[in-house]
């Protein structure tokens, strides 16, 4: 990726004038740096989340604790662990000493760098002393959240919902796109415009009767309202598939037709083998979309904890544990890691898909 983009950038500079010109180089350095800064600010909440997810409750409750996940430093002496403090000494220096016997007016410390010296008495209240911190990512947060929200169950539900929706969407949208791309029939243009027009329809205008009917036939409280509509195609994915199918030459279709192949056979053996890039795109889009869906599971699965996907589980978890930011962020990271990983693996597919559906309509 990096190597590729470097090549492109160099090629672009090369095309438009001398890259060695100092003024040009300065502008490039300035503008690229500016974009790095904007990008870092843009991604900052993600860093915040990842870092917070590794903090211990002790650190979160301390106002002046370091930015990175840390624990108060400790020193183990004779098999016992003692907290370390910054201790101002009578000679004007401040040393890091471990507190052995705390007292109200006088405390006993030990010097971690020189334990043989023995205990050091210090006058004053140890409670006013600051503590040094040492880097300590608290991975236990993840293990605890895993159990607290029953992550395996939420994960299983989310994956199953996403997989079945993806299968339904790919199947139905491929058939519909094939119909629009390869067959002439009266009203085709009108129906295709109608299909695209559904993108502009506010969901609220169909929600109330749909929900009421699903409730009447006993589907509320099951996965059916989330899965069944996926098998009836949707405008975005049909559009994406159709645009791609239109670019595949018809010659092979026609040759197969002359050989007596049925249209379904042509779809399976001639069209699909050439259309796999867009099939992959639609699959990944649908999977991620379904993974990220919140509203439909919220309304159709209310009260059925064993059926919930991650998004709804996460929102409820936030309602209960909002006072423990580390837990909430650990849950967030666990939820976002799979869609983000899919994006990193398939970025070209994602970006191509966004371009087709965004630019060509």
């Amino acid at each position, binding site marked *: 990726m990096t190597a590729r983009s470097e090549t492109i950038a160099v090629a672009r500079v090369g095309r438009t004038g001398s890259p060695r010109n100092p003024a040009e180089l300065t502008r490039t350095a300035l503008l690229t740096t500016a974009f790095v800064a904007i990008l870092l600010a843009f991604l900052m909440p993600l860093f*915040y989340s990842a870092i917070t997810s590794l903090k211990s409750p002790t650190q979160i409750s301390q106002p002046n604790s370091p930015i990175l996940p840390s624990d108060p430093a400790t020193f183990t002496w004779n098999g016992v662990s003692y907290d370390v403090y910054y201790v101002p000494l009578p000679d004007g220096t401040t040393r890091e000493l471990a507190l052995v016997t705390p007292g109200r007016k006088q405390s006993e410390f030990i010097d971690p760098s020189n334990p043989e010296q023995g205990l050091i008495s210090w006058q004053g209240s140890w409670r006013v002393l600051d503590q040094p911190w040492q880097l300590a990512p608290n991975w236990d947060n993840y293990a605890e959240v895993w159990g607290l929200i029953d992550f395996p169950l939420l994960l299983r539900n989310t994956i199953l919902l996403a997989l079945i929706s993806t299968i339904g969407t790919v199947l139905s949208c491929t058939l519909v796109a094939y119909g629009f791309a390869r*067959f002439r029939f009266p009203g085709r243009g009108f129906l295709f415009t109608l299909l695209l027009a559904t993108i502009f329809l506010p969901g609220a205008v169909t929600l109330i009767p749909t929900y009421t009917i699903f409730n009447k036939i006993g589907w509320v409280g099951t996965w059916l309202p989330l899965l069944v509509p996926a098998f009836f195609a949707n405008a975005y994915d049909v559009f994406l598939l159709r645009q791609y199918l239109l670019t595949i030459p018809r010659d092979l279709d026609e040759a197969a037709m002359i050989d007596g192949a049925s249209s379904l056979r042509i779809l399976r053996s001639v069209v699909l083998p050439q259309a796999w890039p867009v099939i992959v795109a639609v699959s990944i889009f649908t999977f991620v979309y379904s993974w990220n869906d919140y509203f439909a599971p919220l309304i159709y699965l209310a009260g059925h904890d064993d059926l919930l996907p991650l998004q709804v589980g996460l*929102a409820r978890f936030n309602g209960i544990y909002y006072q423990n930011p580390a837990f909430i962020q650990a849950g967030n990271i666990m939820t976002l890691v799979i869609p983000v990983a899919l994006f990193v693996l398939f970025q070209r597919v994602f970006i191509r898909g966004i371009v087709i559906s965004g630019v060509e309509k």
Partner: protein
Amino acid sequence: MDQLPSVAVTRPAGAAGRLNLRAWSKLTPLARREARQGLLYIAPWLLGFFAFTAIPMVATLALTFVNLTLAQREPLAFVGLDNYVRLAADDRVWHSLSVTLRFSALWLPISIIVPFAIAVGLNSRHVRGAPLFRSLFFLPYVVPFVAGVLVWEQTLGDNGWINDVLRLVGVEKPPSWLFDSTWIYPALVMMGVWGIGAGIVINLAGLRAIPTELYEASRIDGAGAWAQLRHITIPMMSPILFFTLILGVVEVLQYFLVPLVLKNGTGEPAGATLFYNLNLYRTFFTYQELSYGATMAWLLFALTLAITLVLFALSRRYVYYAGAR
């Protein structure tokens, strides 16, 4: 929509065609076979369209003329325009509509200008590694939306990094973003800006499609960067900016999921996040008023339709389609 130009593929043939049922009888037997097969393939969508779109839409409209609630204490009856009369006098409805419209006025320009500006920057020959930037700007777009909201909730919290930075640069009392009925809107905008990755990608693709000869010719004529932006880039990008605007309008008028998660649907602080669609959602799911909720839904639909139609009418004057007409 079919007026928008396509980059790789020619315009869909006959996309603007009218439904002409008599055409069927004129077909040859072979063409009729083809037509039957085509209709069979699009049958899943046609069935779904009737079951999940057309019939529910008509049912929603029918509901607006009766008095259906889930509890149904009064006998079901035709009430004429009563629901509409109630709607017209409902302060909550007008309040929530004004919340949605005010937020739209803030969000829409930002949602169009920011991705455009970033794309123009990334398209400059002075930015190295544009594809990597593009991917990383896109990244938050795939973050699940609940996780995204919860990440921002804490980032904007009093001990979050944003207020830490503000204190660092000398702001003594940084805003309480999520609990102040004014600051909540910039906070929602920031969360929205996190999802502009797709907009950047679309804008970049559009910018790459502008013929370089236009810029070269204008440079010979002595045009500077600003003149090029105004007289080449923006007109050539106008179809894409228009498309972004239309989809943005449809989306923002329905906006309510972020406040639903952030404030648990309460509309806090002080009703500032009682968006129209949230109000509608509560009318249906909390107060279980089916008919009244349906009436609110039709108002939303009518408003969306009216605004998009006006925008389409205006687009004839302000949007430039290269190669079309």
